[in-house]
């Protein structure tokens, strides 16, 4: 056991750090996705192109496709080092992490030639069009129809929870092409032009007030059969390729830490004296600490596997279910500690700029997005522990006959 880099890792890290120091552009102040401001988006694209030229975009992709032909651990190290700088946002993550790898894996040769390099350089942005209102956790319940019409397909339906749909150029679409076969067998994958007529993007107003996601409506959207990604009826199989390409979640869960609770507690009195000396709070802090540290060292175990050239074990699946609940519990406890004052959410007035208040409003989304607590526990139970699937009434029956309660 050794927390230090190997010689090879250290050399790569030094090289990366040097490059970043020399090349990170001056800050625009704007960060992350959802950038409506054209200047911010331009900065993101310029930064991605610069990384691509230097071999730091899509590090593990083959060089012929715009990558660097590197190893996973190099990608991890670059990510760690880049996180230390204030760089432009990354609206490319979903396209490069999920959509384009799917095209690379099962798409037509012409599509690969057309799409992969521009995506790697950040010239074109992709979004993923899988989730539907009636589907929720059940991606294979997609009802958006694609109907063959000569050499074209005509698309009608609705997708939901689509990140970045409003600034994407292309989308990877999972559509139902046959309702007379079982649900997993009647779907097909396509790529679509998000700027085409027949595509309408509407932002979703979240409970937190923000709009990080969209609904996407298709009305008689006509596409060529050449826009098919994989065979007709292979959509579910193809979607699994997409979902398996989901990037390893390396970062922390976000939100305030136990340190911030201790800081809060130093300024607050409870009945028996300073909150920082309250044994009940201290026990909770200890519980949170071992969970957060446990997740951190679990990620280190994953990185170690990568760095040894192994496939990481299932331990990485526990991160979100632990992190999201931790965040909700910590936020609630902190507000309880603030007592009546805790209700104030305005950053200018609230304790610690309202960090716990905004965590409280964000945590419910984190417990749902990218797999609910319940779905993740199913995955752990079935894929890690090998427990049997629940009884399925939606298999071996035509999609149109699957019970929907309506």
């Amino acid at each position: 056991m050794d927390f230090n880099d190997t010689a090879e890792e250290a050399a790569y890290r030094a090289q990366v750090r040097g490059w970043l120091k020399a090349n990170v552009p001056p800050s625009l102040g704007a960060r992350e996705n959802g950038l409506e401001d054209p200047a911010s988006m331009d900065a993101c694209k310029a930064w991605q192109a610069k990384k691509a030229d230097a071999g730091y975009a899509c590090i593990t992709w083959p060089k012929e496709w715009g990558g660097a032909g590197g190893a996973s651990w190099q990608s991890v190290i670059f990510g760690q080092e880049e996180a230390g700088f204030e760089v432009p946002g990354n609206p490319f993550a979903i396209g490069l992490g999920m959509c384009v790898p799917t095209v690379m894996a099962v798409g037509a040769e012409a599509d690969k030639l057309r799409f992969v390099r521009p995506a790697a350089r950040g010239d074109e942005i992709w979004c993923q069009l899988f989730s539907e209102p009636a589907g929720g956790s059940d991606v294979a319940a997609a009802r958006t129809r694609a109907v063959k019409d000569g050499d074209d397909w005509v698309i009608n339906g609705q997708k939901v929870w689509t990140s970045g749909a409003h600034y994407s150029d292309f989308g990877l679409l999972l559509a139902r092409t046959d309702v007379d076969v079982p649900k997993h067998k009647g779907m097909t994958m396509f790529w679509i032009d998000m700027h085409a007529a027949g595509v309408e993007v509407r932002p979703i107003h979240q409970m937190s007030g923000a709009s990080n996601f969209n609904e996407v409506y298709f009305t008689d959207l006509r596409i060529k059969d050449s826009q098919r990604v994989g065979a007709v009826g292979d959509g579910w199989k193809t979607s699994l390729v997409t979902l398996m390409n989901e990037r390893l979640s390396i970062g922390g869960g976000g939100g305030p830490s136990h340190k911030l609770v201790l800081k809060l507690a130093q300024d607050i009195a409870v009945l028996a004296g300073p909150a920082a000396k309250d044994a009940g709070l201290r026990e909770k802090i200890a519980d949170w600490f071992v969970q957060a540290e446990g997740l951190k060292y679990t990620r280190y175990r994953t990185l170690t596997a990568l760095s040894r050239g192994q496939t990481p074990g299932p331990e990485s699946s526990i991160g979100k279910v632990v992190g999201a609940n931790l965040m909700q519990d910590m936020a609630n406890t902190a507000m309880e500690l603030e007592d009546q004052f805790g209700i104030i959410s305005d950053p200018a007035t609230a304790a610690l700029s309202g960090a716990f208040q905004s965590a409280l409003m964000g945590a419910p989304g984190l417990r749902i997005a990218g797999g609910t607590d319940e779905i993740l526990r199913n995955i752990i139970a079935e894929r890690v522990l090998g427990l049997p699937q629940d009884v399925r009434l939606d298999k071996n029956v035509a999609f149109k006959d699957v019970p929907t309660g309506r």
Partner: protein
Amino acid sequence: MDFDFSDDQKFFKTEARKFLDARSPVAVVRGVLNDDAKSYDKDLWAALGEQGWLGAAIPEAYGGLGLGHLELCVIAEELGRSLAPTPFSSTVYFVAEALMLAGSEAQKQAWLPKIAAGEVIGCFATVERAGTLTEAQVAAKVEGGKLTGVKIPVTDGEIADLAVVLAKEGGQTRLYLVELAGAGVTREVLTTLDPTRGAARLRFTGAACEPLGEAGEGLTLAQGVLDRAAVLLAFEQVGGADRALEMAVDYAKNRFAFGRAIGSYQAIKHKLADMYIKTELARSNAYYGAWALSTGAAELPLAAAAARVAACEAFWFAAKENLQTHGGMGYTWEVDCHLYYRRAQQLGLVAGGAKAWKERLVSQLERRNAA
């Protein structure tokens, strides 16, 4: 043994629910939520006054209906269920109760009839900063009948006519009545987690005030008011938890995933069973609180603490797990889950957080065990 509401009280509850279903539908709540300039619904407030609910527990001699606190508990449960956006709790559970607990005959005569008639909105201004309310926290001062200091947050402070303020005079805590329309009072609206209920920062710079209760008894009387309010708020919380459970059950029966109603999966079933369990435990503790409140029993401080601790837990759990049961839809602005999530926090903090009440509960328990 008669540990339930009477048939009359149950009938009153049914009527109250019908009334609120008609007058406080979710559209009214969202009307306040979506309008930054509104922190309560004036029409609904007027209607509550017309119903006589504001004076349900105020004696007839002071213009109330003189029904008693059990009837007020019944109203509270239904208000909590409907999320009614009004200053009912500040005015009735806090200010009217403070007047009945500590007011002179003249003060009762002056204010209770106006409260019962819906002419006066009240607020309870004790806290000045983050943390449990203690004597050390009170910096507001009265000198020569003039009040100076800052109270934050004050629920309904931005719309109230009359405040009950905790301050010190000569180093001793005391409660004071302050008419907020007078000179020396400024108010700033606060942004809170629950925009369907208002809150403000009140600055007093030499505002006129009159004592409510004796010098040196400010904190004790404030705690007495909190005990009463805790029981009534517990009913609001039980009402809210019950409605959140209903929403979750309804959604779980009708939402299908993988070809089955999600309510047929044990993860959802057992979550909702736990919601039911917590809500029933909270209800039973609230009933005991109601008994103690309505009979003026010596057990009130312990019963109030138990009611509050159980109710905070039940509503918080029901609100967050109702949202979780709704999945992605639950996280949208359009679906009502977040209204209950916000209100659970508002009610969980407005009379002080559960943590402080747990300490009070155990102190009372030690006192009882020693007796």
